[in-house]
């Protein structure tokens, strides 16, 4: 939803021609990426958020499943963020230490985003490359399947899956994985179509290289640019999907949590005065989203020198 189709198309055009520039494409791209202030800021933001998510537990004075009964019940008066009692980000209405809980929630959200994207990259790239390379009727049928699956309201199907087969992280991964590869397959297929008629592919075919080897050796490596850009933009989409489901109370279960679940908890209890229980997870959510968008945009501009 959040991906700009026009820019993606332009990128795809320029990447299809890109191999003329030969090996310097990635080196060029790196140089351009480093010059893009927003993208570099995105990388720094992402590194900080990741460090917090994975190392926060060692800094926190409490664990994420610890409930501070001394503060629980009057969190609004005594649970505000404070250095002195070790609750750096405050305590929410249930007596949970926001610092530890948010670190854990951010970790889950990042993992969901990355797992969903990895599935999308693997399945989508192979599916799209095969479909595009095969062409003809096979291509028609394979793309029709994607079209049909795309017009199914997937959010509802994921929720259906979660309710029927029990709410677990693996089910969430399965549901998100089911939906994430579809657009990737489409984009990869389009790119494969324009790569397919290049001379080096023709040369490979003329020398009798089998089709699967052409796809793996010659098509897939040349798809990396567009896949990398799309994958970076897909991570926030996946995080969004997971947060959405968790917000509805259908995602990960307590004591585990995710950013969406925390935002939901915070929103429900903010009228009692524990505003930090909303603002802390909200802050990390927004920063993570911005970071991925900036990196994705930067990558796209870096790989597409024409689009200024």
């Amino acid at each position: 939803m959040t991906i700009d189709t026009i820019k993606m198309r332009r990128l795809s055009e320029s990447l299809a021609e890109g191999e003329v520039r030969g090996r310097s494409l990635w080196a060029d791209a790196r140089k351009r990426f480093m010059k893009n202030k927003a993208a570099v800021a995105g990388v720094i933001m992402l590194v900080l958020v990741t460090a917090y998510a994975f190392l926060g537990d060692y800094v926190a004075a409490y664990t994420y499943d610890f409930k501070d009964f001394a503060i629980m019940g009057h969190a609004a008066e005594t649970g505000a963020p404070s250095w002195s009692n070790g609750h750096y980000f405050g305590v929410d209405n249930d007596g949970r230490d926001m610092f530890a809980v948010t670190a854990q929630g951010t970790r889950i959200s990042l993992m969901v985003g990355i797992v969903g994207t990895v599935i999308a990259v693997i399945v989508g790239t192979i599916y799209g490359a095969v479909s595009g390379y095969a062409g003809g009727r096979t291509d028609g049928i394979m793309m029709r399947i994607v079209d049909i699956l795309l017009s199914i309201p997937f959010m509802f199907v994921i929720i259906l899956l979660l309710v029927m087969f029990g709410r677990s992280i693996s089910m969430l991964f399965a549901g998100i994985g089911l939906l994430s590869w579809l657009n990737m397959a489409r984009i990869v297929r389009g790119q494969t179509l324009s790569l397919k008629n290049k001379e080096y592919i023709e040369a490979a075919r003329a020398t009798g290289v089998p089709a699967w080897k052409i796809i793996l050796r010659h098509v897939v490596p040349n798809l990396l640019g567009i896949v990398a850009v799309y994958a970076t933009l897909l991570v926030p989409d996946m995080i969004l999907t997971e947060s959405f489901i968790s917000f509805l109370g259908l995602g990960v279960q307590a004591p585990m949590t995710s950013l969406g679940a925390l935002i939901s908890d915070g929103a429900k209890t903010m009228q009692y005065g524990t505003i930090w229980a909303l603002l802390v997870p909200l802050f990390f959510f927004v920063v993570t989203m911005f970071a991925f968008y900036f990196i994705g945009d930067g990558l796209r501009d870096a790989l597409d020198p024409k689009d200024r």
Partner: protein
Amino acid sequence: MFAYIVKRIAVAIPTLLILIIISFLLMHAAPGGPFTSEKKYPAQVLANLNEKYGLDQPLWKQMATYVWNIVRHFDFGPSFVYKDRTVNEVIAQGFPVTLVYGSISFVVATIVGIALGAVAALKQNTWVDYLAVGISIGAQVLPSFVIAPILVLVFTLWLGWLPGGGWEHGEVRYVIMPVIALSTAYMASIARITRSSMLEVLTSNHIRTARAKGLPEWKVILRHTLKPAMLPVVSYLGPAFVTMITGSVVVDMYFSTGGIGRSFVDAALNRDYSVMMGVTILVGALTIFFNLVVDILYAWIDPKIRY
């Protein structure tokens, strides 16, 4: 054109059938039947219940009956949890509400989005452009479930201007926040798409020609820029519709507007499979129908499209 429409419809119908079959099989594969509970029913009662809901029939027959009832009578069957309500009644209660604030959001988002994007493109690289782009990036990372609490925090808790929830038959004060929460995300997307599409059109040859032959600027923009620039926007309307439907779940949950999303989540939490399926299929049918309309609209606007 007619052949194209027929072809599109011919694709839409199997899509809908596949959706119905997937949700039906999912429901059937779920562990535990609808009558599995703490208290064991006597065998005879269970048999009677199964007979009443047709669960003693072979699977294919159940599925055929289910599909047939939907197609023939638009009947989604009884609710598995509420003995006195049918799925149709649940849908009839929530759907009109969703439709009202959904349509308002859709219109608002489209108009504001296009206007914002067009202004940004016309004033490219000025502060107006940066402001519009900034708003749209901000709105993009603020999905409905983030905007809703912020709105309530500001307008209900701090300023006390608007009620924090409820519907009251669509009184204006109750509609404002749901509409903002729902429309912001895709208003931003539409603005971004309009902007980049306008920028592309503005540099094309026919615009230079139009200006060269001395057309007034408003005519150049309205007739020669805006219309071709609308193509990607129109093709985005389909996905936008899906975003809106899913977003309405959050709006219903957060603002207690009582729309269809609420019924869906309640059904999900109560494991009321037939209501969940009914809503999923209804939403799927709407999505497919909407995509169909968008496709036809697109073919009608763009003369280049192949039928």
